[in-house]
């Protein structure tokens, strides 16, 4: 089984913002749904063009606390058709 979660958002949402919203998306769509002992792929849908740093920090907070900052990009891979989104996520984790 591929250890991948494809995030889903309301069709009208193209931009993500807010620390607590990020936490909520992690809790509802990622936590306990993938096995962090193996490489995890987290896919952002094509409709998402931007994520504010607050959302990124809320979404990744628990993963960073449990698996370390260096796990993002190695054990946990962000998948998106938008390279700018991946870059902005990776540069705004802390």
């Amino acid at each position: 089984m591929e250890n991948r979660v494809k995030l889903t958002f309301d069709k009208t949402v193209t931009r993500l913002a807010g620390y607590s919203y990020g936490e909520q998306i992690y809790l509802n769509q990622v936590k306990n749904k993938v096995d962090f002992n193996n490489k995890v792929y987290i896919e952002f849908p094509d409709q998402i063009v931007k994520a504010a740093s607050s959302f990124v920090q809320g979404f990744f907070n628990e993963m960073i606390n449990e698996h370390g900052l260096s796990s993002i990009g190695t054990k946990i891979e962000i998948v998106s058709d938008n390279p700018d989104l991946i870059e902005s996520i990776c540069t705004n984790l802390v």
Partner: protein
Amino acid sequence: MEKISLLLSILALIISVAVAYYQNRKENERNKTNLWADYFNTIYKEHLIYKIPESRNYLQFVDNKLIGTEKLIFELNQIRKDSVFFRYNNNSYYVKLKTLLQNLEDYIVKTEEKAFEGGEQTDVMNRIELELDGIYDLISTAYVGAN
């Protein structure tokens, strides 16, 4: 007579030790203050005087949508990253600044998604200006406190 002379010598010694201690303490405080002011100058001068005003100029409404936000958002995040030093040295200031920076970034990112007409566009620009003022005020107040 000798006793009085001895007493005066002791008193003079105590006073000179006290003065030296006081001057040393003052000097340390002054050095510390100069050091903090230097940190603020190094970290924020470019951002506040040049980069934020320049990046602010790229904001505009086209077809009722706010565009040109990338540079300002980049700057807000850069200030947050450059302020990490204060996370360990003045945490309450760091948390307040981070909150203001991310609140403005959130507002801009959410605003980009919607369409605004006429006066609403002015309201958006005014809100951004107001939040930028708050960021400038916080940094300036902290800097003045360091002086």
